[in-house]
């Protein structure tokens, strides 16, 4: 049974095929900066919608966003519950045993949840539309040393294998009567040694085999490496980069002017 290796989803879209991974990385960073510069839920909501729209334009399946949004939902609930303890701006909407929940407090909590959703979804769109090879290649072209790039690719290549080993070990030990469900958390954690022990051995074993195989093929022999895959920055890439830079500048200006900021004094 094959073991999957990345979040990348192959699609014949413009975003996948024509836009350089470095550009996409810059766009991702832009979205993070924008997420941090606004704390008004309306603005963040619009940005989130824009990111999802880009993802849909890249022909990513709608249900792939579900995981990210569900993840963010936790933060949203947490935010709406906790932030009102700190933010007392605005009219009181709720009062529970002496604690006052104001409208702005709740909205700020919502904004924090949307911020997480925005960042996580943007990262998701980036990973789903850029193959691991391209991500690594982009970073290498940006100056990442090739050995570090190899660490990244190897990780992507081997994490699923290690996961598969873990699953096999758990099966093998369960077949010997290991019960990981019984007992209190402390007892269960102790029993996990039966899984972690073999995992460490297997992982070290695999790492050693990999290292030998790489040495056998002269990895590290030269200060640099040829790369047969090519990526190139085109005019469209530069337009996007400039566009993102302008967005950042505009957002900073808006922030300074207090627009898109629900609560001053908080990020």
């Amino acid at each position, binding site marked *: 049974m*094959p073991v999957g290796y990345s979040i990348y989803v192959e699609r014949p879209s413009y975003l996948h095929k024509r836009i350089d991974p470095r550009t996409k990385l810059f766009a991702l960073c832009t979205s993070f900066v924008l997420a941090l510069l606004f704390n008004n839920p309306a603005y963040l909501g619009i940005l989130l919608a824009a990111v999802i729209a880009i993802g849909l334009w890249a022909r990513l399946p709608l249900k792939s966003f579900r995981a990210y949004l569900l993840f963010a939902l936790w933060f949203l609930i947490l935010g709406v519950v906790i932030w009102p303890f700190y933010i007392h701006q605005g009219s009181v909407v709720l009062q529970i045993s002496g604690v006052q929940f104001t409208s702005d407090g709740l909205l700020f909590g919502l904004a924090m949840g949307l911020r997480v959703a925005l960042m996580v979804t943007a990262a998701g769109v980036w990973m789903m539309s850029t193959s691991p*090879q391209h991500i690594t290649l982009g970073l290498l072209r940006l100056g990442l040393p090739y050995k570090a790039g190899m660490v990244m690719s190897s990780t992507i290549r081997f994490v699923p294998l290690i996961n598969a080993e873990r699953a096999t070990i758990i099966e093998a030990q369960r077949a010997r009567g290991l019960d990981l469900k019984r007992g209190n958390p402390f007892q269960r954690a102790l029993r996990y040694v039966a899984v972690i022990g073999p995992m460490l051995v297997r992982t070290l074993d695999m790492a050693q085999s*990999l290292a*030998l*195989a790489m*040495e*056998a*093929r*002269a990895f590290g022999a030269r200060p640099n490496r*040829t790369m047969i895959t090519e990526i190139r920055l085109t005019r469209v890439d530069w337009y996007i980069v400039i566009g993102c830079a302008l967005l950042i500048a505009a957002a900073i200006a808006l922030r300074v002017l207090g627009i898109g900021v629900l609560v001053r004094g908080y990020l």
Partner: protein
Amino acid sequence: MGEPVVRVDGLTFRYPTSDQILCGINLEINRGEFVGITGPSGAGKTTLCMCLKGLIPHVIGGTIRGRIIVQGMNTRKTEPSILAESVAMVFQDPETQIVGLTVEEDLAFGPENLMRPASEIRDAIPRVLHTVGLTGYEQRETYRLSGGQKQRIAIASALMMEPQVLILDEPTSELDPLGKDEVFQVVQRLREEHQVTIIMVEHEVEQLANVADRIIQIDRGRIVADAPPREFFHNAELFRRTVGERLPQVAELLLALEAEEFVDPVDFTPYEEEAIALLDRLLLRKRD
């Protein structure tokens, strides 16, 4: 004839935490030969491969003595990256020797490390894929390949280095029968169509007999037999059901028949077809 492509003189080796693994290996291999290596587990077969490849002593530590010359280079004194252009190796585990996420990426890995020009690499890829019977597989994700396919890609990646010597260390032991056949077909093709010198450690003696020019048995760090398959499996003293590999069943059969004088030693063969022909003749004679 010329210089042998591999020459080993008085090789001994011990790992840091163990006893002597190789206890004096002397060996000569000529260009283009296909040498099979058999022997019980722990005999030193893998260690010998590592020495020939130069991984010992450069990557793996231990006490090494003796000389190994491959393609005119002394493995103990030559950089492994330079050796890598002459000797390539395929390991036992299909999974951990594949580095690339796609077939193309894995095939390019070796030559990329040696900074060969991108165009040269791209041209070589379809040729090498054709040799291993996987034409068109460039963009396939490596995790989706079967065991046999993975090992064939490993062979292909080794061939991308354009080595003079190809070492395969038990390449089929993790594979199912189909995968084993696939690998043997590839080495058979390499033997017939290319000039590569092949060294293959194997337990599948029946198939090894068909492809090897010569088989070496290693036991407790020493070479105890070295002969073409016919002679090798004829050595009853070596095999009389005590040590090492199982024999090809036809060899076992003919040795026993020879012991009872039903078969002439000169007619001995480890090959299935020849054995059938021989027995056919003998049974025909008996009928009359």
